[in-house]
Structure formats: structure tokens, C-alpha cells
């Protein structure tokens, strides 16, 4: 470890990944799904009995139209929701569904987003509120830490948090480019969850720093701040990894065995958790040291 000597190297990993994430987002952007952008709704009827839903899902997802949500309706019909279709795309979808031989179209309409403008602006307010309240709370919880000022703990925690949501967002931009992954309501939920839980490890490390500083004060022992941080990281690294491990274990099961609809959700969360684990060691702690050094010069 030895944070006082090698501090420059610490920032390489989070720095490099953040730059890659920003490039990915800038280059490819995020693809809004039908939850956010709206799309079209096609209702079909099979008077002679409808085919199995798995078959319909399999056939329609192979068309390259992005996500197609299939839902049985009544006794003999299906409702399909997908993005807006061109005439050619609609024809190929209809042919796949067996029109006009076995299936007939009941209606084809365009639909608005189920996540309205209202929710999007609310999501931004929610993110800002989480950020502000977390800074306030950490500043409050660490008010007795002898140094540095407790506001620094709060602000460093938030910088770390922003890194933790930047990485999965960058990955999603990459996935959107490579396999057409779309941003849906669950993606927003995942990011908000990372906001809530990735702070765990940062708090565990900060808590140790706080305690070691207090013990030093009690023993009237002088120790460089960078050494206190170094020691605290070494004392907490096992539990940091283990607490994240427990969450990552269940998330990986959710990813590999869980429903397909929550696979991207689990992946986003897993990446966010991994980012949250290393960032508390490689970003939060060294940032605290650098800031402390800087303000003493």
C-alpha cells in the first residue's frame, strides 16, 4: 500500500476508467428505451388459437427491433410494445407474427413514454437531494473527527459516489453501442440504488480513519495523516472486500439465473458495486490525503 509514497499511482485506475466512461458516453450516448421514449403498440389476434408466448418472444427478439414486450391479452391475442417502426420494419414484424395468414391486426398505435417528463425531472431532483443530504449527513456523522474538517469527508464521499455511477453508465453506453442495450426504468433504479449503497465501503474506511485518529489523540501519539489513512485501509480492506462480495454474489446470481428483464439491472449494479469497492480504497482515501496535504501548504 504505502499511500504516502505511491499516492500518484492510486488515481490511475479510477482516473483511467472515468475517462473511458466519459468517452463512451460522449461517443455513443445512451439509448432511451420505450419506457422513456415511447414507441408503438401492435395488437394481434389469432382466431385459430395463438402460438406459445415463448415462441413469439424468441421470434420477435431476433428481428433486431430492440426490446419487444409481448403480453397475452384476452383468449386469443397478444399486445406487443416496441419502439417506433418504419413501414418496412412493421411489415417484417407482421410477417413474423404470421400475418395475414393466421393472425390479424387489431390495432397499431403509437404510445407515449410510461416514464413521463415528470419522472425524469423528479429523478434529477432525487439524485441531487441524495447527494446533498449525504454530504450533510457525513459531515455531521464525522464532526468529531479531529482532522481533516468533516466537510472534506462528505465532499470526498460524493466525488467517490459520482465515480461509482459514472462507471456503470459508461458501460451501459458501450453495451448500447455493442448489443443495443436500452435505458429503461430499471436502469434509473439501478443508478439510484448505487447512489444509496456504494457509499458503504467509503463509510467503513472513513469510520476507521476517525477511530484511529481518536486513538492517536488519546495516546497523545503523533502520526502523519497519510500513515493513519494507510493503516486504516490495511485494517479495513478485508471487510471492504467481503461486504461487497456478499452483495456481488447475489447480484451475479440475479444476473445469470434471474429473469432476463432484470439482467441489465443486475449487471449495472454489479459494476457499480465493484467500482464502489475499489473507489473507496483508490479514490476516497487518497483524495482525503491529497486534500489534507494541499491545505497545509
Amino acid at each position, binding site marked *: 500500500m504505502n499511500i504516502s509514497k505511491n499516492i500518484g499511482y492510486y488515481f490511475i485506475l479510477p482516473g483511467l476508467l472515468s475517462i473511458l466512461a466519459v468517452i463512451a458516453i460522449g461517443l455513443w450516448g445512451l439509448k432511451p428505451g420505450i419506457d422513456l421514449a415511447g414507441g408503438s403498440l401492435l395488437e394481434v389476434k389469432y382466431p385459430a388459437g395463438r402460438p406459445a408466448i415463448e415462441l413469439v418472444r424468441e421470434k420477435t427478439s431476433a428481428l433486431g427491433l430492440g426490446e419487444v414486450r409481448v403480453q397475452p391479452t384476452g383468449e386469443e391475442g397478444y399486445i406487443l410494445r416496441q419502439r417506433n417502426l418504419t413501414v418496412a420494419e412493421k411489415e417484417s414484424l407482421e410477417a413474423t407474427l404470421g400475418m395475414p395468414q393466421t393472425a390479424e391486426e387489431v390495432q397499431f398505435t403509437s404510445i407515449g413514454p410510461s416514464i413521463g417528463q*415528470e419522472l425524469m425531472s423528479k429523478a434529477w431532483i*432525487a439524485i441531487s437531494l441524495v447527494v446533498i443530504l449525504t454530504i450533510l449527513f457525513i459531515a455531521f456523522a464525522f464532526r468529531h473527527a479531529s482532522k481533516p474538517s468533516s466537510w472534506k469527508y462528505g465532499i470526498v464521499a460524493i466525488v467517490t459516489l459520482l465515480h461509482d455511477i459514472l462507471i456503470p453508465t459508461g458501460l451501459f453506453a458501450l453495451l448500447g453501442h455493442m448489443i443495443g442495450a436500452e435505458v429503461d426504468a430499471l436502469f434509473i433504479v439501478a443508478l439510484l440504488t448505487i447512489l*444509496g449503497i456504494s457509499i458503504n465501503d467509503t463509510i467503513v474506511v472513513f469510520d476507521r480513519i476517525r477511530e484511529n485518529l481518536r486513538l492517536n489523540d488519546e495516546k497523545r501519539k503523533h502520526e502523519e495523516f497519510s500513515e493513519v489513512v494507510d493503516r486504516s485501509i490495511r485494517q479495513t480492506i478485508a471487510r471492504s472486500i467481503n461486504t461487497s462480495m456478499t*452483495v456481488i454474489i*447475489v447480484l451475479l*446470481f440475479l444476473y445469470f439465473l434471474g*429473469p432476463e*428483464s432484470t439482467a441489465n*439491472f443486475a449487471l449495472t449494479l454489479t459494476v457499480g458495486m465493484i467500482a464502489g469497492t475499489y473507489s473507496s480504497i483508490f479514490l476516497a482515501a487518497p483524495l482525503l490525503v491529497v486534500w489534507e496535504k494541499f491545505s497545509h501548504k
Partner: protein
Amino acid sequence: MFALRYWSVMILIAAAALAFFVWRTTGTDGRFDFKLGLDLSGGTHLVYSADTGKLSSAQIADSLQTLREVIERRVNSFGVSEPLVQLEQGGALGQGTHRLIVELPGVTDVDEAVRLIGQTPLLEFKLIKEGASTTDAAGNLNPAAYVDTGLTGKYLSTAALQFGNGQAALAQPTVLVTFNSEGAKLFAKITGDNVGKPLAIFLDNQLVSAPTIQEKIDGGSAVISGNYSADEAKALVRNLNLGALPVPINLESTQTIGATLGDEALHAGLVAGIFGFVVLSLFMIFWYRLPGVVAVMALIIYSIMMLALFKLIPVVLTAAGMAGFILSIGLAVDANVLIAERLKEELAAGKKAEDAIREGFARAWLAIRDSNIAHIIAAVILFWFGTALIKGFALVFGLGVIVSMLSAITISRTFLLALGVNEQKPLSRFLLRSGLRK
């Protein structure tokens, strides 16, 4: 020691009773069965057409947005969680009728759903056309005599119950409606331009009253005085506060629909949860030994408590909610990891087992408290701001954090102390330590 063991046994008995309750009520379709969301169980699909004929094209988008929000609020208010409310426009080019799709999970009584949505009031303020007769020959209302002012329920901010000034027996309940700032401006303009004329107030296309405008009203509020009983006025206030319709809507069709994700998603979620749980338990037991076993016990009790809460509250489970629950199992074990690591340190410092356990819990508590409070802050904000889907997730997540804090601190601690491990025995020392080395 006796008290600790007594409580441990009591906790186990209570957990077993809860588990029995969860097991017996599952699959009964009764009051305490799990409630599944639209994506997992299907429900009712209602289509309404919105009458936008009277609106200018600039107003349409705005009014439809308000319509969607009002209906979503209304549907949420009658306890159907995670509904889908979506605008749609007919025709491939988006030129047709504006429609509103409402999907209600688990609702099988279509008529009841239609009735509840139908209670959404349509509030309109109209002027009377010069020279037109307000009633036809038979004395019925002549709708053609009334002209729209553009002031509708869209601009409504709040409604409140008021009683007139007369004697108690004569006091007539009235409803005070307050407009938002835009509505207040419009109201001031309408009243200012039409002093001396009657302003007719329509509720659900029925004329309620037509008071004469005495002067320009700037305050942005109006009083609706019909011949209401106190109960009728209260119901109207409640309905108006949930939102009034900006445009009239008509029910076009109702259908029952199947699940978007269906059984296979439910099954996959269960499999993921169970496998995640088993591997997590194995990890905890092999790495943390005795504290690990206790943590797994606490985790089982945690899961039982959560499942019972899902049934009692009730929480509507969707794919997002299930993911939240599976995630919370991973989080619930966090506190136990912190405690076990601390315990190991205290033992290494040469403390007696009981002291080490007490000290380990006390020291771990600060970090557990701080991180859990950070979680709860996030959960509350998500619940407060999110719409249906996010609310469900936030509720499961927030409940999980609170229940897991309880199970990690109280239950694990009681069990661990009740076991009465003696640190002098090598086996006990081995069991309390963790990690790869002895």
C-alpha cells in the same frame, strides 16, 4: 445468561410462527397471499379516449400530460400499486385520437376499476352565450348556451371544505377551490372581463351553480356552492384533491391481460434468490465460522420477516421489487461481516469471548449505523419522488435496511452471547476466528 437463552428461544419460536404464517397463506389467493405486479401476474387493461377537440394544438400536449398524472395519482390512491398509465395516439403517423391506457395489476374486477377511475371529477368554468337561453323548451339544460373559458380542473391546485356563516343548522357546506398561479391569472382575466355576468361552474358536465361575477377576483380561488350535504362536500373535496380532469375522457375498451414477464420471470427470480442465499450462507459459514452460522440464522429470520411484511403491508411484488429484495439479502449480511471482523480483532487483542463479542458489536455499530442511515436517506428520497416502479423498489429496499439492522444487531448478538462460548477451549477459539488462517 438465562435471560439471553430465554430470548434466543423466543426469537426462534416467533420466527417459526411467522414462517408458518408465510407458508400457509401462500398460494391461497386470500388476503395474505403475495400480491404480484403487472409484469408478473397480469391484470386489467383499460383504454380511454380523450376528447381534445376543444383544445388548441398547443394546449393538447400539456393537458394530456396533466391527464396522465391525475389518473396515475387516482389509481395509486386506491391501493393498486405499480399501475401503468400511458398516453397513446392512434394511427401510425400519430394523427388520430388521443388515448390513455391504464393497466392495473391483479385487478380482476373490471367494473370496480372503471367505477373508481370514473370518480375523477371533470371541473369546468363556462360563460353564458349572449342572448342564448340556458334551458331548452322542456326546462332541461341547454349545453349549447355555455362557452368554454379554458379554465378547467387542469389549473386546480387544492380544494378545501368550508361552511357558510349562518346558524349551525343552516350552515351550507361549500367547496373552496384554489388555482395554481397560471389558473389564478386566467381566473382574474375571465372575471375581470365579465363583471356582472354569470360564471357557470360545471362538474362532470352537470351545472353546479352560476354565480354572478361581482368584481375581478385576483386571489386565485373560487367557491363551489351546490346543495351539498356535509358528506357529499367531503367526497367532492377528496376527489378534487386527487386531481381534476383537464379534458373529458370516455372508456373505450376493457380487457384482461396476461403478464409481460410471466411465470418464467417469477421462477427465475426465485431460483436466483435461493442460489444467491445458499452460496452466501456457505461463504459466511466457511469464512466466519461460528459468527457466520449465527449470521446465516439471522439472515433466515430476516428473510422470513421480510416475506411476512410483504404480505401484511401489502407490498406489490414486481421484477424490480424482487431484485430489491434479493439485493437486500446481500446487504443484510454486511453488518454481520463488520461485526465478525471486529470480533476477531478484539479476540486477537486478548479479550475474553463475552467481552470481545460485546465490544465487537459496540465498535462495529458506528459504521453500521452510518452506512444504514445513508441507505435510509436514499430509500426515503426514492420513495418520495419516484413514480410507481421506483416506489415499489424503494419500499422493499428501505424495509430491508431497517429490518436487517434489527436482525443483525439484536438477533445475532443475542444468539452469539447465548451460546456462551468459552475462549479457553481451542475449538471455541477456532470457531470465533475467521479467515483462512487458524
